[in-house]
Structure formats: C-alpha cells, structure tokens
C-alpha cells in the first residue's frame, strides 16, 4: 500500500541542483536510499520530514500535504525523524532528552510520557543508560538514542538519515533487527552508504544520482545489474577497469572478463558500482 507520494520534486541550493524532478512512491516496509554524496538523499529526507520546503513539486504522506500548515502539523504527529546531525543536547540525560522530545511530540501527560520514554529506551537497548548524560554516551549509543527519539509516539512514517553510521557490527545487527521489525507495520525510509545494510534491511532500494532516481527495485535486482561482470582472477586485469586485491590474494574485477577470470555472483555493491560507474578520480566507491 502506497503511503508516501512524491511528484516532480525539485530543490536547488544556489547553483547546485539537489533534487531534479524526482518521482517516487513508497509504502509500508523498509525502503533504502543509496547514492553518492550530493545525490539528494538528505534533501529528499528533509523534504519528507517537513523541515525543508521543495522549490517545486508535491509531497503527499498518509494523505497529508506538508505545504499546508495545518496538514503539515498533522503529518508531524505521525512522523519520526532522525537527521544526519541530530545535535542531541550533551548536558541532558538520555531520559531527560527523550522526555523533552516527547513533549515536542505533544505527549503532555507526564505518566504517558514516562511510559513512552521507558519504552523507547528499552526498544534501543538503552534502559540501563537512562540517567547517563548524552556527552558521556559512546557514539553508537548516541546514535541509538537518536533513533529512540524518532520512535517516540509510535510514528507511522519513520525517516532515518544514515542511522547505521558509527555503529560497530554488533550494534548494526541490533539495528537491523529493530528496523526490520518496525518495517512490518510502518513506512521506514532510510539513507545509507552501506550497501550491505541496504541488502540486509531493505525490501526496496532507490539509488539517487544528481537528484534523480536511477534505480528503484529489490536489492537482488540491483545486484543483478552486475550479473556476468564480476570475476576472480589470479592476476590483475588489463586496462582501466574496477578491481581490487582480495584478502585471499587474488583479484576481484568488475567489468570485462580478465584472461583467467572466473565468474562469481555479484553483490549489491557490485550492482551499485556498475550502475554509478567509477568515481572520477579513484575508481572506488563514492
């Protein structure tokens, strides 16, 4: 079921075009946004989170139009948002910070608010850090607290801008479990640079480049873009192709078959790199 619709969305910052007539429909489940820096991921998320107005185009989420101030407030009641730089107040304790955001989300009744704060802390595994000041939390814990504030008030639309940044593998696994559970009933839209996370978490991936969607489909379909173009070989390939030396000492190539190349199944990263091509200078992931 489609819950969010974006049509002909355009946004410029001076001479830079951040969104260039983007069309997108999103439904319940986890949708991942991939793309190089400057592709428009954050701008799109900020527009959907109602903090940024597009120059042109329309947004409709749960039947509400954020361009109208009343409908915008109504949409904010159904929204949970983790920005790229949450800027959580360092001198607030984890519980006090969530209490503050809960008030901003109109959870005015103290009893209800406290229950909600405890629930959110438990959901991200920070119950035992409730009294710890934000400045004393580790980077990963702060990130979890950022997600916890987004979950206050049981939002229908959850927007997370790079939620897995700075997390160790164990914390990322915890997040994957949490986010996939949320995606069972809510619309979760997240941006990430980790193609691995997108593959593990998202039932749908949208790749943005220069403000446009250049791919929209299942992670497996993204991987298939590089089908028959990923090889392992004993020596490096000739010519200007993307390749790297693996831990096993052989070479993994994305492109034409090297002389002794054996085809291997492509990963999502391969599909992503194939789609976007090599970066102008280095030929590595952007």
């Amino acid at each position, binding site marked *: 079921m489609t819950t969010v619709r974006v049509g002909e969305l355009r946004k410029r910052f001076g001479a830079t075009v951040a969104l260039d007539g983007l069309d997108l429909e999103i439904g319940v489940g986890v949708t991942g946004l991939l793309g190089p820096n400057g592709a428009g991921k954050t701008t799109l998320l*900020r527009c959907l*989170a*109602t*903090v*940024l*107005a597009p120059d042109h185009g329309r947004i409709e989420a749960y039947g509400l139009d954020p361009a109208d*101030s009343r409908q915008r*407030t*109504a949409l*904010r*009641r159904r*929204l949970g*948002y*983790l*920005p790229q*730089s*949450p*800027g*959580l*107040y360092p*001198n*607030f*304790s984890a*519980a*006090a910070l969530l*209490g*503050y*955001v809960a*008030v*901003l*989300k*109109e959870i*005015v009744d*103290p*009893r209800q*608010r*406290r*229950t909600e*704060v*405890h629930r959110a802390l438990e959901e991200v595994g920070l119950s035992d850090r*409730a*009294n710890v000041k934000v400045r004393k939390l580790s980077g990963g814990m702060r990130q979890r607290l950022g997600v916890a*504030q987004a979950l206050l008030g049981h939002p229908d639309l959850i927007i997370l801008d790079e939620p897995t940044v700075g997390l160790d593998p164990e914390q990322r696994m915890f997040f994957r479990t949490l986010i996939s559970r949320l995606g069972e009933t809510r619309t979760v839209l997240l941006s990430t640079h980790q193609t691995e996370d997108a593959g593990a978490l998202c039932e749908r991936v949208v790749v943005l480049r220069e403000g446009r969607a250049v791919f929209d489909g299942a992670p497996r379909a993204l991987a298939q873009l590089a089908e028959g173009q990923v090889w392992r070989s004993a020596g490096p390939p000739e010519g200007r192709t993307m390749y790297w030396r693996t831990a096993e000492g052989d070479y993994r190539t994305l492109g034409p078959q090297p002389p002794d190349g054996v085809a291997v199944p492509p990963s999502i990263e391969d599909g992503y790199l194939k789609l976007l091509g090599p970066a102008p200078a280095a030929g590595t992931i952007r």
Partner: protein
Amino acid sequence: MTWHVDAELLQAYERGSLTPSRVMAVDAHVQACAACRAAVPADTAWLDRTWLAVADTVVTGRPGRAEWLLRRVGLPEHRVRLLAATPALRWSYLAATAAVLALAVATAYTGQSAARTTLVLFLVFAPVLPVLAVATAYGPPADSMHEITSATPMAGPSLVLWRATAVVGPAMGMEMIAAVASPGPGWWAVAWLLPAFLLCVGTLALATVLPLARAAGLLGGTWLLVALAAGSSAPLVQGVLFGPAAQVGYLVAVIAAIAVLTLRRRHLNPGESR
C-alpha cells in the same frame, strides 16, 4: 528445590498471618521458584504502576535549577520541559551576560572619564541584549537540536513566542540589577526598559514578515546606529533617546507592535528552511 509453598502456607502468606521469619523464607523461595511465584496472586496493574513510579524516581532525577524556578512560577510541567531546553536559558549564556554586565558596572565605578561614557554606552546597548536573547531563543544557529524540533508538531510560532517570553525575563532582570547597581542618576535604571521591550516585541512583530534572525538584526542594528549617532553627546542621548517624549513614543509603538503580533502571530517566521 527441597520444598514448595503448599496451599495452607500460601493462604497464611496472603493473609499476612505468618511470622516475619517464615515470610522471609517464602519470599526467598518465591523469588527462585517460578511455579510457586505463579501461584501467588498478583495485581498486575498495581505492579505496573508501582514499577513505573520506582523507575520514575530512579530515572528522571532532580529537575535543573532553571526548571525548578519555572515550576515555582506556576508553569505546567510539560511547558517547563520545553522552556528549559531554550538555548538562551542555559547557564553558560546567562553567565556570559552576567559577566558583561558586571564588567560594565565595574567600569562605571572607576571614576575616570571613561566611566560616564560607559554609562551612556550601557543605556545604548541595554535594549539590544534582550533582542539577542529573543533572536537565539529558537532556530538553527543556537539550537543544535533544531532539525529534530522542527519536525515535531509543537514546532512553529507558539513555541517561538513561549521561548521568547522565557528569555526576555532573565535578560531584562539581570540588566535591571546592573542598572540599579550603577552609579548614574536614578532614572538611568529604568530609562532603557521601554526601548528594550519595544525592540523585543517589535522584533517578534517584524518576524511575521521577515525571518526572526533578520528581524532582530534589522531592528537591533537600526537602534544601535541611531543611538551611536546621537551618542556623540551625552545630553543628546538622554534627551532624544530616553527623554519623556521618547518614552511616550516607545509606549505607543509597543502597543502597536503587540497589536500586529496578536493579529499576525500565525505568520511568525522562525527562520526555518520552509
């Protein structure tokens, strides 16, 4: 497990007719034995409420001094939470303001020729200080969590007005103390009050047309330019800027600004990207 709580013992335990030593024995056993624990009837709702109350006491901690003060004023708890997060109400901001004012007062007591100039400058700058507090009460430059705040239903004009009101009080209070502590004539202590109030209300009224920060810059800047231009002679500052005629003018302008703000409060532009 060598023994279990039988029906008779359980009844006595529930009735409260056991001796303390036997109660402790049953308590210890029930904690370790899930089967006996399940047999003890429990009011789940009561347990939940009690647990929540315990967690509240342990987790919430004591409110900060700013929160305590705001609650003493009689504001509802949720409102206090909102205001306590106002950047310009933090101790660092208040301490910096107090330090600047203390320095001004100290200079005024030096008895040198600079002292008189300091007092005139105090009069000129005093009305701008609360405007600075208003301009930084809401929005991205001062509030690191603004991006999160602005995606919530409470974001917008009413939060700006609440925060602006909350910051004007301490700013003007501190200035009042500084003015009274200064060695100037009696009227100096209050002469700046109406212009300060006008600049604050005027900034908010102008913010219904311009972004808040720009409105504050425009009004504060205009005041400083006019005041410093007149500031070449102290009598001129006193007469033109703080004389009786000027004060009446400020009062009329304050009433007009309040009227504009009341009518156009929904259009208040906190300077967000929207």
